[in-house]
Each structure stands twice: as structure tokens, then as C-alpha cells.
């Protein structure tokens, strides 16, 4: 009896230290539930049955339950992006697509709520550079977003296609950078048969290629580039976590399955 009680008493501070040094809140809560249970055992061995019953039922069952109810998603992950069919698209009242699925999983992994805002391309870079949003997406290509933002390592290789047509150029490249968000302008121009000279990344090109492209010249520009997400500069920690999460997705094959679901 004394040995058992001594062993339990030695175990108590160990579990307490373990509980208070956990990084995840859920682990700390469950460790404190275990602590309450062992404390109830100590009370039982100290011949206090009333106290043991009360401590066990309250500390192990109710307190754990109430904490778990309270640590519901306690933060927000704000994502801005441009609407790109296949990657980030509206599905009725909600948003879907490959990037949305990746970012929703990442938000669940962090324990945050996901909030997605669909804006135009320049606003994406501006919002992320100012730190108003946590992550920027929407078919952004690595190296094409300018200074002031961090990029994760590319998660999906893509190619750049150049669609051009001789004649007047009604829709032109807005700058020297690649793949833009003026997909609606491009599709309108293709439908209308106007002149065009744009570079598009794969997802946008897939969307445009469903239209009738006779009369247009399509070149695939050499070189590889990747889709990426951008983050405000200074958030290295989240950049690391997002990169690690994307690598985990790629290694487990989940990324390929998701690409198969959304982009083909």
C-alpha cells in the first residue's frame, strides 16, 4: 500500500510537468485528465473514498470534456486568391478546388477557421504584402509575385503557355510577369475572336482550351515553373509549417489524388 501510494505520488509531478509543457492544447488537456485520475487513486489509497469518487468523476470526465468543448477553433486563417477554375473556384455558396482543399486541410491541421476571399490578382499581392491576409493563392507561379512576399516551395509543377494571334492586340500582357488573373477578359476575347497575346499557366490554359481556339497560336514556353502560395514577409514560421505540410501531402500521395480529382 505504501509502495503503491509512493509510486503514484512520484508520478504526479512528472505528469504535471508533461502536461504544462505540451505545445498542443489538446495534449495538455488530456494529460491533466490523466493527472486527475492518478490523483483520485492517491486519494483512494489515503482512505478518502468520498473525495476519490468526486475527484475522479469531475477531474477526469467533466473538466476534460468542458475544456475540449472550449478549445474549438480559436483563430482564423485568412486566404485571398483569384478565382481559377480547378484550383480555387466558387461552388454555389462555398469555395472549392485543389488549392481550397489543400488550404482547408492545413487550417484543420493548425486548428484554425478557414476564410477565403476572392479578389483580383493585384489585390492578392497587395493584401499579402501588407499582412492583411495570411496566405495568398489562386494559381500563383513561383517567382512571379515580386518582392515583399515569401513563397513556399512549389507544390505542383506547371507549364506556361503563350496564346497569341496575329493582328490587333486587344488583350495584352499587363506586365512582364507571368500568369495573370484576368481570365475572364481572356475568355471573352477568345470567344469574341479578338487579338490576344498572353501567357497563361496550366489551369487557366485548361480553362481557355475548352473554348474554340482556331486561329490562335499556342506555344508552350520552355522551362519549368511551379505553383506556389505566398505569405507576408516575416512569417517564416508559417512558411515552414506550410512547406512541411505540402511535402507531407506529396509524400503520402494525397496530393496526386487531389490533383486527379480537381484538375483532370
Amino acid at each position, binding site marked *: 500500500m505504501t509502495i503503491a501510494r509512493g509510486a503514484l505520488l512520484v508520478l504526479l509531478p512528472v505528469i504535471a510537468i508533461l502536461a504544462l*509543457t505540451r505545445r498542443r492544447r489538446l495534449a495538455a488537456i488530456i494529460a491533466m485528465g490523466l493527472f486527475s485520475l492518478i490523483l483520485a487513486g492517491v486519494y483512494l489509497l489515503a482512505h478518502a*473514498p*468520498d473525495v476519490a*469518487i*468526486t475527484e475522479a*468523476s*469531475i477531474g477526469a*470526465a*467533466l473538466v476534460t*470534456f*468542458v475544456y475540449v*468543448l*472550449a478549445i*474549438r477553433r480559436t483563430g482564423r486563417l485568412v486566404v485571398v486568391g483569384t478565382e481559377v477554375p480547378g484550383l480555387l473556384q466558387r461552388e454555389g455558396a462555398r469555395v472549392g478546388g485543389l488549392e481550397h482543399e489543400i488550404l482547408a486541410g492545413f487550417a484543420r491541421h493548425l486548428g484554425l477557421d478557414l476564410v477565403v476571399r476572392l479578389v483580383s490578382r493585384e489585390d492578392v499581392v497587395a493584401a499579402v504584402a501588407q499582412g492583411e491576409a495570411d496566405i495568398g493563392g489562386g494559381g500563383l507561379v513561383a517567382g512571379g509575385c515580386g518582392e515583399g512576399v515569401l513563397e513556399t516551395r512549389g507544390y505542383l509543377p506547371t507549364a506556361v503557355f503563350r496564346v497569341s494571334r496575329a493582328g490587333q492586340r486587344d488583350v495584352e500582357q499587363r506586365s512582364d510577369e507571368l500568369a495573370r488573373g484576368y481570365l475572364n477578359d481572356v475568355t471573352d476575347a477568345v470567344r469574341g475572336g479578338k487579338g490576344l497575346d498572353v501567357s497563361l499557366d496550366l489551369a487557366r490554359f485548361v480553362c481557355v482550351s475548352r473554348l474554340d481556339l482556331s486561329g490562335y497560336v499556342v506555344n508552350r514556353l520552355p522551362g519549368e515553373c511551379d505553383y506556389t502560395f505566398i505569405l507576408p514577409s516575416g512569417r517564416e514560421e508559417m512558411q515552414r509549417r506550410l512547406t512541411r505540410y505540402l511535402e507531407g501531402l506529396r509524400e503520402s500521395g494525397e496530393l496526386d489524388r487531389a490533383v486527379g480529382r480537381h484538375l483532370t
Partner: protein
Amino acid sequence: MRRFSMPFAVWATLFVTLFCGLVLFAFDYEGPRVDSLGLSSESLAYDTGAANLVSAIYLNIRLYDTLLEVLVFSVAVLGVHFYLGPRGVEEQVEGIPESHVIRTSAGLLLPVIVVLGIHLVLFGHVSPGGGFSGGVVAASGLLLCAVALGAEAVGRRFHETFLERIEWGILLSILCLACAPLALGRLPLTDVLPQGQVGSLVSSGSIVLYNVLIGLKVFIGTWVIIHFFMRHRGEI
């Protein structure tokens, strides 16, 4: 303990260790005292008629403390009701999907838990237990029910129809029971029912009534807390 300036963490640890060491060595604890307090166990049991000495103390000799502690409990539950009440029901979170396993096991476990709770409350003056433990165990049984059936259904059936109405009535009846001896010509806070033989179910005066009322009060209070937490979260 991350991202704190190192000197602060070191100083804090040093200070707390020093404080604990001081208390440990200055507080000369030699073990329990051999002689008991002025309270003899025998006289305690036969005076109050309760075999469970702990019940005898907190429901007969120090009843005043227990009444005010029940009041503190009620105020805390009232606070939860007040702050989480005005919020409407949150939008539905995807909860645990309706699982056959949970339902079946809840169906098996629920009678056991409820019977254990009632036993702890009713026999609180004879064996370990009492109003507080029994109420909490019964509330965790209701919690199991809410996990298995969904908080909405249980809330609608129990909370709004039945529990909410008797919540404050029970507190009132506890206070009335404490003052009832006045009607019989005794001092308040003493026994109303006769004390039977020590160790049997019918004994120890109004300790049984107090146990039942406090058990109900703790049961309802705990359920109210859990109900509002679940409502605030959306679903379990």
C-alpha cells in the same frame, strides 16, 4: 515557455523554487498527529445518526458552509447562463457522425451510470458518496446521452421542458428545508426527520433529504453548463 526572454524565465523559476523550498523546509511536517481532534468518531456517528462521518460533518454539523457553497455553485452556473445565453445557436459544425457503436455502448452504459448516481445520492449517509458525487455522476450520464443522441435532442426534451423549471425551485427548497425546523420549535439548520438506527437506510434525520436536493441541484447545474457550452460550439 517559448519565446520568453531567457532572464525572465530563469528568474521566475528561481523565485518559485526558492519559495517552494522555503515552504517545504519551514513547514515542519512530521506526519499525522496520533491523538485525534476533540471530535470523537463515536460521538459524531451516534449524535447525528449517520454512518458516513463525512456526510455527518458537512450536512449536519457544518451545514451552513454547505448551504453557502451551493449558493456559490448556483451563482457560477448563473454566470455561465448569463454570458453564453444571449448568443444564438452557432452554425452547425460537422459533429461526430451518427455512429452505431456510440449509440449501442451508450445504451449499455447509461443504466449503469444512472443507477450508480442514484445509489451515491440515496445511500450517501451510509457509504461513501453524497449529494455532490452523485449529482456529478448522474450529470456525466446525461452527458453520455447527449453525445450519443445529439445535444439538440436532449436539450429540447430535458432542458427546456423540465430542468429549467425546477432549477431555482430546488435551491429554494434547500433553503426552506434549512429553516423548516423553526416550524417544529427547534433551531434552524437542525434535523427535521427522526434519526433512526445508525447504518440503515432510514437514519440520520434530514441528511437524506439534503443529499437528494443537493444531488439534484448539482445535476441540473452541471447539465446547464454543458448544455450552454455545447450550444456555443455548435455541436459536439
